[in-house]
Structures are given as C-alpha cells and as structure tokens.
C-alpha cells in the first residue's frame, strides 16, 4: 500500500533475498506436464509456482460465442486457496477477473487466431504458490503451453516485472517487495518483434524513471525468452530419446 521504513535494500545495495537490483530469480520451466491438456507448462520462479494448460482449438460452447473469422481465446487466471498467506476463497475475485483479461490480451497478439475460425482456445492458469510477479509467471507458462499445443504463433510471449523499492529500480519483484515497495510494473512482450502486449503500472514514477524501467524490464524479457526457447527444445529432445 504505502512505502514503509522497511529496509528492502541493504547498505551493500543488495535485496532481502540477496539479489542485485537487476537480477531475476532462478526460473525453472518444464513443458508438457499435464497429460490431458493439448499443451501445458509448469513455471517456478523463486517461490512463485504456476501451472498453465491449453485446451484447443476446440468446439465453442456456448456456440454463440464462436467467431466466423477467427478462433476465440478464453483465459482463466486462478489462485488456489492455499497459495497465499491467508486462505483465499476459490471463487474468482475482482483481481482474478482483471488479471484473466490482461493475460488474455497479453497472449492474443501472439496467436494466429485467423487459422482456426469457429473454435475456441482455452488457457487455464493455476497459481499454486504466490510470491510476487504471478501474472508474469502465468504469461511465461501460458505461452509455453500454447507453443507446446502446436498452436501457430508469431512469437513467444515473455514477461517480467520491475519495481521500485527504497528508491531503487529492481527486476522481478517478490511479494514482500510488492507490498512494502513503492512501485510494481509488470510488462509482457514478444521479444523478437519488440512489441509490448501487457503493461501495468501501480505506483509513482517520473517519465524518465518509466523509460529506464521499461528498458530494464525489456532486457530481462529477452533473457527469459531464451530460457523459454530452451525449455521447449528440451521437451522435444526428450521426446526423441523415448522413441
């Protein structure tokens, strides 16, 4: 809510988990983790843990939602009741409804929807444990799940958050940094096309700081993008081994 006097940056310039300001947490990405889904992925970014599954392109129910010129994309971002400190009701909150919308809009520009008229592509994201930057981890996982479902895409979507804590711009904010820091700004982009598909700012930044933060976070997205490509390749290398 408001900047507290909590020291989030040490005198040495390190963050409470020992990271440098421009350092992201370790990310583990696994593709093809849920058998029933057409595509799926699991992403672990520090203590933020997320599953994403893609079903489709498939028939639309209810039918009137179908579009004659392109596939419809539906997205559901959902937190498990045990993913946060105090049990969260499993019913979708206003926050989850908003995040489902912005995540859908972050993924839509990447998908060649025109190739699948009259169908729907369902994207489900389940937050297993939340420790900041859950929407970014969700986008990373969902875009891997879409690619592994074999859905033609213009590019993968990478995402990362940038924050401001104790006056310092930092990458990949944790829950504590989000709650006690001054700013949280998630950004998603298609790195190969240099296009932004999600941008939300929550907190005060001067225009100069904003430009700096965007440059910083887009560099991080490029790094995450390389890891996403490696995670996809790893799945296919494994598939070759089995056969």
């Amino acid at each position: 809510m408001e900047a507290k006097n909590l020291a989030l940056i040490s005198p040495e310039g390190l963050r409470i988990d020992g990271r440098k300001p421009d350092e992201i947490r370790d990310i583990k990405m696994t593709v093809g983790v849920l058998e029933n889904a057409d595509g799926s992925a699991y992403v672990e970014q520090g203590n933020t843990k997320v599953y994403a599954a893609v079903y489709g392109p498939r028939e639309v129910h209810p039918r009137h939602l179908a579009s004659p010129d392109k596939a419809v994309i539906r997205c559901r971002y959902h937190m498990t009741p045990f993913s946060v400190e105090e049990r969260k009701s499993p019913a979708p909150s206003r926050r989850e409804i908003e995040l489902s919308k912005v995540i859908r809009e972050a993924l839509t520009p990447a998908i060649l929807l025109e190739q699948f008229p009259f169908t729907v592509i369902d994207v489900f994201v389940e937050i297993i444990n939340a420790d900041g930057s859950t929407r970014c981890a969700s986008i990373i996982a969902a875009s891997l799940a879409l690619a592994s479902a074999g859905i033609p895409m213009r590019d993968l979507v990478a995402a990362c958050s940038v924050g401001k804590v104790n006056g310092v711009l930092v990458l990949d904010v944790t829950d504590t940094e989000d709650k006690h820091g001054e700013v949280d700004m998630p950004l998603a982009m298609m790195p190969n096309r240099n296009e932004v598909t999600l941008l939300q700012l929550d907190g005060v930044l001067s225009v100069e700081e904003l430009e700096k933060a965007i440059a910083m976070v887009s560099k991080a997205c490029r790094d995450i993008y390389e890891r996403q490509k490696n995670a996809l390749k790893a799945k296919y290398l494994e598939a070759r081994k089995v056969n």
Partner: protein
Amino acid sequence: MMSKVRRKQIMEALSSNKRTDDRGLEDVRNIEIRCGIVPNADGSAEVRLGKTLTIAGVKMNIGVPFPDTPDMGVLIVNAEFLPIASPTFEPGPPDENAIELARVIDRGLRRSEMVDLKQLCIIPGKAVWEIWVDIHALNHDGNLMDASAMASVAALLTATLPKAAVNDKGEVTLDKSARQKLPIKGVPATITVAKVGDKLLIDPCLDEEEIADAFLTMTFIGDKTCSIQKRGEKALSIEETLRCVNIARKKVEELVNAVKEATGYGKN
C-alpha cells in the same frame, strides 16, 4: 460489428491526421462537468465527454480499516455498465470490462494519493471512514475510462462528510450539521491513448474504440505517472508506448483545469 464503409471513413480521415468529427488526433471532445447533482449522495458528479455520459457518486460511512493499514481510511471504487448506456451492455454483475475500469480508476486515485486517507482515521485499527465511489455509465460513446475517472475525481473534490468525534465511552459520534470537505492532496488526471491503424489518438469515440488495436490508459499526478494499463487485443511497440506517455502528458494540465474549474477546487 461496424460497417466497412464507416471503418473506411475513419481510416481515411486518420490518414490525413483528422477525425470524422473534425477533431485533431490529440483533441479531447467537449467536456461538461456538473457537480452535486445527487442530493442524497455525499458527493456526485456527472461528466459528459462528447456524447459519452457517466455519473459518479460518493457515499461515506464508518467502517473497519484493513489489517495492514490500521491508521488509514478505505477507498473503494465500483463500476456498473448498465443496459441503459448501450445496446451491447447486459444486466447482471459487473463484467471484466467494468471490473477493469473500476480497478484502473481505483489504482489511479490510490496511487496519486489524491485523498489523504491518513486523515480519515478515527480510532486506529477500529474505526475509519470508508469512501465508496460508484460509477454508473449512462451513455456509452467511447472512452468511458477517462470520463468515469474525471467524474470520480470531481465527485471526491466536492464531497463532504460529517464531523466525527470519539466520546468518553470510546464510541464514534457524528455531527451531521458540521460537514467538511475531504482532505485532498492533489488532483490526478486520467488519459487514454488509442492506437488505430498506425495512428495514436486521444479520447476515442465508440467507433474508433471498436477498430482500435490497443489502448494505453495513464493516470498522472503532476508530471509523474502513477498508474498505467495497456488494454486491447493487439500489441504496442516500445517506441509507441513511450509516445503514448508523451502525448498523454501534454494533456494533463487541460484536464486538471477542467475539473478544478467545475468543482471550484483551489479557489478558497
């Protein structure tokens, strides 16, 4: 769905940096703000932006603070897109668009620290003022976001609340004869830039909104940004994103002045 003829008309006008209503790309439609139109509300304002009409009402009551901010008042924004406003709106609980609008406006108001919530604490941890801002769209002709944000700001600027005191028994008493204005720290402005084709324009009307690729809604307090939301089904390049910020930044003063004039804020 829009006819191809209408789409062509808009795109042709845009290709020579014009709009179909003769505006330039960075012109806002005519703004009319009327405050205090709802006697039963603690604050209210109706904003007409071209043909878009939206109303915001403020209601206040004593409530319990959030556990993590025991010494601060509570501000809650809710929005309803009712069928009265558009043939495409349906009755029922707020859909994702109404929820997004309310949450974006909420973040803008909160992060700009427009209302000094600290001064709305009566008994720390026990009793604080709860401010409810309810937004109702009445006629949708595009850019409900900026119109509703302006209505919310104007309603808060003109809202009054009874004087609260604590008696010897530790109970909160209200003196309804002594009403005072809310503690205001600054006046934010919310501006949406739409990308239509390869053009960036502000204050999109409904037809422009329907063919727009993406939107960037920004709230400014002074010359700083305090909230941004990218919306829409297509992407913006990084360069376009920064251009949006600079286009919006130039409009802050004009919008803040319009609200100040209508509310009389800063005059006494």
